[in-house]
């Protein structure tokens, strides 16, 4: 009880603190200098219609690389932690799935995967991009696992996709250092015609790798949790 009161007091104090952090917040009526630069020069510097994508992939590309790394780390740790040490894997009872779900998933899974790919390829034009696309791909996997619980997910495939896309991401970054102005410079490819699929230089390429990598990592986490279901 004493503890709950203490928690309450501390939270009140924290609320006061937060209130004071944003006490100077008056909303924005116009873009600040930084955002203004992105809005004005972004299209010609980077060539991406989606400014968020421009910021995420190019201007703050290092963050994105870090973010992908975080997912990679999570996936690695989860897989390490859930690794079944005893090699004797027991077969588990298979749940029978309804035919409707089965059939639906047969159609839905490829569609989901395609949609995911569409999302990250169009990341520079419309909302969405590598993360969203990757997440969608992983959802496709979930759907598949729901309908066919017995299905063994190929870890090898996941790992290879993960590694190749990750390596490519890094190599593109390094290529930027060597052949262009800096790490992850997207002008290595010509910017193309603004607003079309083949534009914004390397952004779509990078987003493809990000999408694949995020998809693979999330799939890896889920597959690990799924497989772990086997071990009762």
């Amino acid at each position, binding site marked *: 009880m004493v503890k709950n009161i203490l928690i309450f007091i501390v939270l009140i104090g924290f609320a006061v603190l937060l209130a004071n952090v944003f006490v100077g917040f008056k909303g924005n009526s116009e873009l600040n200098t930084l955002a203004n630069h992105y809005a004005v020069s972004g299209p010609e510097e980077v060539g991406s219609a989606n400014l968020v994508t421009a910021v995420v992939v190019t201007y703050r590309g290092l963050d994105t690389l870090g973010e992908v790394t975080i997912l990679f780390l999570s996936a690695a740790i989860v897989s390490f932690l859930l690794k079944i040490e005893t090699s004797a894997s027991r077969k588990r009872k298979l749940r029978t799935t309804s035919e409707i779900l089965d059939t639906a998933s047969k159609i839905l899974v490829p569609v989901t995967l395609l949609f995911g790919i569409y999302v990250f390829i169009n990341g520079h034009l419309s909302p969405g991009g590598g993360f969203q696309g990757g*997440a969608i791909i992983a959802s496709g996997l979930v759907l598949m696992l729901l309908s066919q619980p017995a299905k063994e997910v190929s870890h090898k495939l996941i790992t290879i996709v993960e590694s190749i896309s990750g390596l490519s991401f890094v190599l593109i970054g390094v290529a930027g250092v060597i052949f262009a102005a800096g790490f992850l410079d997207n002008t290595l490819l010509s910017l193309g015609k603004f607003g079309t699929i083949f534009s914004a230089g390397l952004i779509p390429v990078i987003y493809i790798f990000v999408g694949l990598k995020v998809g693979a990592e999330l799939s890896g986490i*889920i597959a690990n949790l799924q497989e772990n279901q086997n071990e009762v």
Partner: protein
Amino acid sequence: MIQLIIALFIGVLILIMAVIAIIHKNLVVGIIAAGAVSLFASVLYLLLSAPDVAMTEAAIGSGLSTIIFFYVLNKIKRQNG
């Protein structure tokens, strides 16, 4: 103005869901409520002209995150039984 009302409505929903997520005894309900917070938040993001964020929050925050919660919960329940 209509935007404001929607925002307020969603905001109230978010808060209700958040409180449910915390206080409901049933973990499944809690997880779903937390997913709902994310889902409503993504609507709020749309109102705030942030479609990218909305999409991400919907796919990751309310989608995958909830799924992972359930996988873990499921696993824990199996071990129990």
